């Protein structure tokens, strides 16, 4: 029987219902769906999909085991290279990675690899007993800065090799962006906690509320007996537009807005103590994944109108197609080719409107996207009471400021050797958003993995060459 051309659809929560709750949007495959989708995989001898995966998951291998209904074995295959499969199955841009290489994609739709990954990962969280490999401690200590995907991956891999690993995390809960940024409806925090616990079960210690650069420094970590340090501190610094009115009450950075909602559970106020301004007419400036998450949160907090304001056109929006599609389904308005000029306040200092100007696309800029230019005289006022700035983030300078010899680019990213993740300071590696600027979960994990391998080789060799 020829494989069916189209993939099995993912069941989702009805758009109208979900726009007012924080429950998961994509519900996951049932076993029957998973078996049917898995049966589409041709099990290529030279699988191209694996080349598209930054952590080289043995994709045909785990899908074959799904076909045989050996779900525990399937997840073990995934986990041998990916410590956070339930997260990746939900948030990876598979359409641009593994799935983009699938041969079925040439004539129809590629195998839904991400959905299958999520299926086996969720199966284990529900039914399975996570397998923790036995390892002989090797007596060497490694410190990891930040408990985001890069830090968790690096720590997990090193623990599997016998290292005594401690992660230092500045927030009160580990997970990085997975905990404070990505909302519950896309990535339930329970799932993140379970995956973090898996890393803990591998023997990794996690010290929360511990800020490297403040509570202690990288140089002091070496004094305290750590043999190597991996920096996975992310890119947490929000950018603003520097337009008039940006400090009015009711203007948030996306980081603050999402942190209040996801980490602090402000959507459950007053059962949880952290408050949030739940505007009725909310504009989110920007069109990346973070902007989509913010605008969809605004809807769920009860906004009558939730809008994306973006200075370029539809084609240029950096968010994943699926996220844009979900936002549209839920009723988000898109004001494209529109740029804010200033935010207007009422007499008490609260946002009451946002003056914008219409844009048109001119010549391509450095990024290859056509540069938006303002159309003179096209200013108008958008009726809003809350504004969320989602313009991107950059790495926090705190580590560079407090560590001798740690080099960074002007924009804040740490300088590293591309393959190994070695920084300019001997004994210190870095990876993830701290090096690349905002990127993806899986790239951060890939960098953590590569660094773990190089840390191991370096410490094994006993060499001091850097």
């Amino acid at each position: 029987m020829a494989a069916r051309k189209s993939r099995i659809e993912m069941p989702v929560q009805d758009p109208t219902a979900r726009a007012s709750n924080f429950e998961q949007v994509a519900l996951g495959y049932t076993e029957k769906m998973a078996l049917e989708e898995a049966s589409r995989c041709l099990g290529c001898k030279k699988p191209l999909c694996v080349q598209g995966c930054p952590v080289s998951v043995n994709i045909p291998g785990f899908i074959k085991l799904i076909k045989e209904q050996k779900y525990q074995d399937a997840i073990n295959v995934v986990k041998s290279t990916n410590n956070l499969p339930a997260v990746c199955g939900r948030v990876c841009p598979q359409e641009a990675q593994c799935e983009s290489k699938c041969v079925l994609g040439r004539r129809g739709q590629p195998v839904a690899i991400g959905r299958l990954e999520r299926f086996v990962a969720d199966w284990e969280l529900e039914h399975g007993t996570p397998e923790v490999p036995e390892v002989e401690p090797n007596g060497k200590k490694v410190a990891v800065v930040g408990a985001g995907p890069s830090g968790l991956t690096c720590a997990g891999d090193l623990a599997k090799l016998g290292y005594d690993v401690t992660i230092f995390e500045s927030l009160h809960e580990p997970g990085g962006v997975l905990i404070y940024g990505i909302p519950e409806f896309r990535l339930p925090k329970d799932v993140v906690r379970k995956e973090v616990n898996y890393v803990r079960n591998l023997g990794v210690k996690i010290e929360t509320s511990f800020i490297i650069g403040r509570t202690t420094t990288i140089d002091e970590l070496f004094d305290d007996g750590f043999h190597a340090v991996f920096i996975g501190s992310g890119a947490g610094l929000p950018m603003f537009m520097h337009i008039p009115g940006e400090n009015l009450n009711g203007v948030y950075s996306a980081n603050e807005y999402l942190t209040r909602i996801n980490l602090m559970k402000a959507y459950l106020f007053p059962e949880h103590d952290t408050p949030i301004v739940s505007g009725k007419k909310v504009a989110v400036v920007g069109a990346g994944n973070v902007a989509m998450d913010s605008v969809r949160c605004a809807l769920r907090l009860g906004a009558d109108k939730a809008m994306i304001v973006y200075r370029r056109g539809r084609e240029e929006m950096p968010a994943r197609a699926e996220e844009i599609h979900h936002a549209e389904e839920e009723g988000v308005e898109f004001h494209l080719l529109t740029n804010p000029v200033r935010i207007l306040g009422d007499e008490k200092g609260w946002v009451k409107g946002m003056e914008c100007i219409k844009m048109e696309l001119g010549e391509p800029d450095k990024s290859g996207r056509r540069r938006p230019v303002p159309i003179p005289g096209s200013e108008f006022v958008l009726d809003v009471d809350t504004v969320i700035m989602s313009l991107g983030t950059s790495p926090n300078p705190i580590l560079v400021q407090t560590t001798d010899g740690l080099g960074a680019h002007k924009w804040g990213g740490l300088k590293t050797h591309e393959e190994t993740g070695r920084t300019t300071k001997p004994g210190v590696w870095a990876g993830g958003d701290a090096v690349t600027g905002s990127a993806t979960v899986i790239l951060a994990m890939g960098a953590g993995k590569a660094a773990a391998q190089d840390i191991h080789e370096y410490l094994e060799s006993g060499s001091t060459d850097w």
Partner: protein
Amino acid sequence: MNQILKKRVLTPVTKEIVVSAPHIARKAQPGQFVILRVSEQGERIPLTIADYNREEGTITLVYQEVGFTTKLLGKLEPNDTIMDLAGPLGLPAELPEKGCVVAVGGGVGVAPLLPKCKELHKRGVNLISIVGARSSDLIILEQEVKECSDELCICTDDGSRGFHGFVSDKLKQMLENGLKPDEVVAIGPMPMMKATCNVTREYGIKTWVSMNPIMVDGTGMCGACRVTVAGETKFACVDGPMFDGHLVDWDEAWRRANTYREQEKCANERCRCGGEH
């Protein structure tokens, strides 16, 4: 976990706790603060480190029970633990090495002022302290400030003790009488810091204030703590909390501090009817 070792009631609404926090005590410097969370559902709030003891590995926090979280904190007793405690955060205060400094403290602001007074005293600076509150029973840490000051003036708004009037009025009187300090450090409620800056501006005396805006992470990640200083947006948690008071946009800071006033009311009502967790 950070255990509370000692607790002292300074006024009916102001408490002092000594907390075991060896990592923070090892690094703390005058002017820095911590962020803490009291319960699983709790909010993250900043509190200035009022004192620290590196040998014993402790820090001292003083707080007024004004909001929901400080009220919950007020219910904790010695041997209880503070769920999450992160720090030391912010930049240490830039204090002069010599000369004459007037330290002005209003209400609970005397607590964050104290570590600066101690440091100035240690450096041999001539320190004149002005400490005030609404009434005499609300004056805190008087003895501690006195011990490190060359001169101490007590002020009360209601005249129940010392100078009858605001601390800024007392400072004004001193300056009119010819006192010429090199710098002023003023910490307390925002209107008090603003009034003090208005007094010193006329005399061109550099005045440091400590901003206490709403914060979430305390490490530069969110921008909740934005203050405008000299027309530029600063993040108080990493660029401050001490700023040149003459350059602060006080009206904006006041407005922003009141962002969640409605929600605070709701939370406080819950606290009153015992609906705590």
